[in-house]
């Protein structure tokens, strides 16, 4: 209800001005609230799509020419071109033909008859394997193999006139004498070494390796070496797989056993490593290597799909089960690995298609087969955004797929995940690497780092600033208070970048050199202080001490504290030499504690963050203490209480809401401080409470990673999720603090 109405105000002008002021202030307040809400809405809006489910949209269908059925097709591939208008499907047939189908119009654009190397016509194809990057490994009926690359036609022209893709042969191996292989794989490394492994009918594996090298005379020569693996996996081997460079060979048997061989550069084969993958001895029906050639995807006869990778064991590295993906209902017949991320496409005998992301074990898509037309072959587009399926009758379907953000799930963000190459599940934050990198987006080290940094900063800042505020407002003279307060508030005006810079480059080496003295000073300072107080009881009898006690006690205490510090420095040398053989940091690392000392650690962060937080807490606490009416203190002292009793029992409880608010505001500032933490820690995402090493906070993480995150990508949205987490943290703490503050207000009266 307005206090001023037209009747109570002397003039109309004053009333109008009052009304105007009210509107302006209300507008200002409402704008502030609206902007905060808008900011929160913005960051939540960028974060929410992270949890959007994956999508698939059917964009085209076609049919094979009548002379071919689905059973003639050995493999299919999809070439999306630059725009979706150029989507073409590639189909390899048993007769040795490559059929190119335009997937948008459904028309066959071309058919190429292929011949094995060195022959004009002749045998057809027995097996075609699609590899990432548009490459295909072809096994001919006479045992010869070719590695071909499909090169997209010239872009730019409209789809109808675009030239069909052309083939480029990358490697060939000659026809095999003797029994024809049941299955074979061919790979060519970037250095030019060709490796072929063929599974012969009697269960042995024939390995051929060709390396093109320059000999001393400068001529190119091809050195080939052939070997046969006759180990007692026996006739049970069902499937083979090899990595992109031809260095590791994997095999799966019908008893559920995985075997691994290392193929060396000079043609030798390392010892076999066996892993009994399935205790119930179910057959392994499909193998594929994930992007990066570290994890092996294994599909078995009962529809299970799992990934394995080598992990450190007592003797070298052994294959270990890493992830279990969504199981199929019948045996897995084909696994295709994505060329863009760690996802897998799998097809079972029933014809159902699954698309899964391995690290987060998320099932992205599941396309059941139509009842009479099970899918027989599938292919994934090179950029991972298109899916082609061929059924037994020869119908083709193309979907445009969008996996959303498959790396992110509640478990990968907040739980322990087993990453490729690691020995055990862990909380890891490491987002960037080469093209086949597995993003590790665990927020746990970041939240831990934020809490750790804030804890040490508040541990340093809160006692100093609260006691300082108490002294400045209550125990010292008003003139001194008027001098101290502005000086402390000037501390708040130092830019945090400057503080971070000074702390990182000047304070860190000093603390590193004097760490033992610093730790001893935590003991000597209180001891010297107490000793001085005992001494003071005798000195009090002199007259000049009365002047000191009227508010200038700190002048006398400064030399005492300096003496305590000097004592610590003086003692540090001899103590370190006697107890720790002259090197305290070495003892920390090698002794029973096993702690590493890092130059950029939480002690210097506590100083830096404390420097920014102390003026805030000091200011607000001091204000609230001074606002307690002096009449209360006077009454208390008149009744015979000492200064300390009055302060502790009368003034402090009355001011407690304000002091609590001061601490909470300081906490909010410490949690959100970015530049100091960015410059003075090493931004190391570790989970360790020790104050002698660094950490990585949510705020510094955003500052460090956001220039690198592509807009709208997974990392970008996860960084906004970090911002949402920071907001929630501060909001929860502030709300709880406000509730406590209201309660304290009601309890302790009028302020």
């Amino acid at each position, binding site marked *: 209800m307005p206090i001023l109405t037209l009747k109570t105000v002397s003039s109309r002008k004053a009333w109008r001005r009052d009304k105007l002021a009210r509107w302006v202030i209300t507008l200002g307040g409402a704008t502030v609230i609206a902007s905060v809400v808008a900011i929160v809405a913005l960051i939540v809006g960028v974060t929410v799509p992270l949890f959007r489910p994956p999508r698939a949209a059917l964009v085209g269908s076609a049919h094979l020419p009548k002379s071919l059925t689905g059973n003639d097709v050995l493999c299919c591939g999809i070439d999306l071109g630059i725009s979706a208008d150029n989507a073409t499907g590639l189909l390899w047939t048993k007769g040795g033909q490559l059929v190119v189908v335009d997937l948008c119009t459904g028309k066959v654009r071309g058919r190429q008859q292929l011949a094995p190397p060195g022959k004009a016509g002749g045998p057809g194809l027995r097996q075609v394997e699609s590899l990432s990057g548009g490459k295909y490994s072809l096994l001919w009926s006479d045992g010869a193999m070719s590695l071909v690359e499909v090169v997209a036609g010239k872009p730019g022209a409209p789809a109808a006139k675009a030239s069909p893709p052309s083939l480029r042969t990358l490697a060939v191996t000659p026809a095999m004498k003797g029994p024809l292989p049941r299955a074979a794989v061919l790979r060519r490394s970037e250095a030019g070494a060709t490796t072929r492994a063929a599974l012969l009918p009697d269960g042995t594996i024939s390995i051929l390796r060709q390396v093109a090298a320059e000999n001393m005379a400068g001529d190119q020569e091809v050195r080939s070496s052939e070997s046969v693996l006759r180990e007692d996996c026996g006739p049970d081997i069902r499937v083979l797989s090899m990595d992109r460079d031809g260095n590791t060979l994997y095999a799966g048997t019908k008893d559920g056993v995985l075997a691994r061989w290392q193929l060396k550069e000079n043609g030798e084969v390392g010892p076999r490593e066996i892993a009994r993958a399935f205790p119930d001895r179910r057959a392994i029906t499909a193998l594929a290597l994930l992007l990066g050639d570290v994890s092996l995807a294994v599909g078995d006869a009962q529809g299970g799909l799992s990934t394995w990778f080598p992990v450190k064991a007592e003797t070298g590295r052994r294959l270990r089960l890493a992830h279990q993906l969504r199981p199929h209902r019948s045996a897995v017949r084909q696994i295709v690995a994505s060329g*863009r991320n760690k996802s897998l496409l799998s097809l079972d005998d029933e014809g159902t298609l699954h698309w899964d992301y391995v690290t987060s074990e998320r099932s992205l898509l599941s396309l059941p087969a139509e009842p009479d037309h099970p899918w027989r072959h599938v292919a994934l587009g090179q*950029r991972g955004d298109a899916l082609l399926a061929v059924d037994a009758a020869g119908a083709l379907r193309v979907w445009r797929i969008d996996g959303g953000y498959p790396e992110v799930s509640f478990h990968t963000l907040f739980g322990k995940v087993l990453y490729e*190459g690691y020995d055990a599940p862990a909380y890891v934050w490491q987002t960037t690497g080469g093209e086949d990198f597995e993003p590790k987006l665990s927020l746990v080290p970041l939240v831990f780092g934020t809490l750790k940094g804030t804890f040490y900063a508040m541990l340093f800042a809160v006692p100093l600033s609260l006691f300082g505020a108490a002294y400045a407002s209550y125990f010292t003279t008003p003139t001194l208070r008027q001098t101290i307060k502005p000086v402390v508030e000037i501390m708040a005006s130092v830019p945090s970048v400057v503080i971070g810079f000074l702390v990182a480059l000047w304070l860190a080496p000093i603390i590193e050199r004097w760490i033992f003295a610093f730790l001893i000073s935590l003991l000597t300072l209180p001891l010297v202080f107490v000793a001085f107080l005992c001494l003071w009881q005798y000195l009090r009898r002199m007259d000049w001490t009365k002047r000191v006690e009227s508010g200038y006690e700190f002048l006398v205490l400064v030399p005492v504290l300096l003496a305590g510090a000097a004592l610590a420095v003086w003692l540090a040398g001899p103590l370190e030499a006697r107890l720790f053989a002259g090197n305290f940091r*070495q003892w920390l690392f090698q002794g029973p504690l096993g702690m590493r000392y890092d130059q950029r650690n939480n002690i210097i962060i506590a100083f830096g963050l404390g420097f920014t937080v102390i003026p805030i807490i000091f200011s607000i606490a001091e204000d609230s203490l001074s606002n307690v009416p002096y009449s209360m203190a006077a009454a208390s002292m008149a009744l015979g209480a000492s200064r300390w009793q009055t302060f502790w029992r009368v003034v402090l409880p009355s001011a407690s809401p304000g002091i609590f608010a001061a601490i909470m505001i300081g906490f909010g500032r410490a949690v959100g401080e970015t530049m100091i933490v960015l410059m003075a820690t090493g931004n*190391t995402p570790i989970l360790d409470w020790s104050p002698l090493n660094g950490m990585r906070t949510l705020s510094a993480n955003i500052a460090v990673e956001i220039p690198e995150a592509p807009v709208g990508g997974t990392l970008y949205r996860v960084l906004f999720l970090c911002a949402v987490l920071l907001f929630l943290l501060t909001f929860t703490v502030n709300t709880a603090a406000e509730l406590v503050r209201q309660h304290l207000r009601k309890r302790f009266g009028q302020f």
Partner: protein
Amino acid sequence: MRTLWSRREAVVLGVAGFLCFLALPAQQTRADDAASSASKTYEKVSGVDGNLNSIGSDTLINLMTYWAEAFNKLYPNVRIQVEGKGSATAPPALIAGTAQLGPMSRRMKPDEEDAFEKKHGFRPTRISVALDCLAVYVHKDNPIRGLTLPQVDCIFSKTCKSGYRELTTWGDAGLTGAWATLPISLYGRNSASGTYTYFQEHALLKGDYKDTVKEQPGSAAVVNGVAADRAGIGYSGIGYRTSEVRAIPLAKDDKSPLTEPTFANALRGTYPLGRTLYIYVAKKPGEPLPKLVEEFLRFVLAREGQDIVVKDGYGPLPAKVIQQQLELLK
């Protein structure tokens, strides 16, 4: 009146100082001759003006600034702005059109090229501009003779893909005495950096960095960190070397000899961490680049540009490579 020197002494000192001063450009020219034999002089053309923005690598930031200054002297109507927060900032800038030049100390990843192609309709053009050696720095007091690449891998990574054993103290790396029990303190770049990705691919064999690698915001910050930390080791471009640190010789494996990080060794292939520095531009196939961009790149590849490369501590391109790059500009 008593003065510090007599008149004769003052004249002698003055002449001696003047002669020393004259000798300095002579030193400079000798260095220039070594580099400039590979490239031709730049020929000025008319009609070059406008704004040029460069967003990308921190390794190249000094180089871009020197080139920009020298180019500005030739064409006073050109305004060039250089920003270097890390190689990963270059592709988004080129895609969005906020920069015409994208210096990067690594190649673009396939998904960055895809995103570029999606926006523009053609793939980005990569122009090599200088050679760099990625050096591994230790404190100047560190007596280690050198390291093999597997040792570097196991010092910096937690996956240790090269198969060497884990190294946590300088004693594990082969030092004795007071250094033997000192834990190794790691310094590196942050993830926006091309140097970070290059080192991960070539030294760590695409493994993961240890969590304890302290991420520094720039190449110079890594060197400063190592200079202040006795147990420190870090990686950065050779151009950032100071007298407070040592760039140690590296060997590819146990059987190869330790080689110093020099450009001659990088070109020969004996130093394992040599790399090329690039500038990416958006050049539509069949059409020439905008005149300002093309002339800037011609300047960079000419004798004057390559001299600046030498001045900043990087390696000039061999003649054959310069020819290939000029072909790309056509």
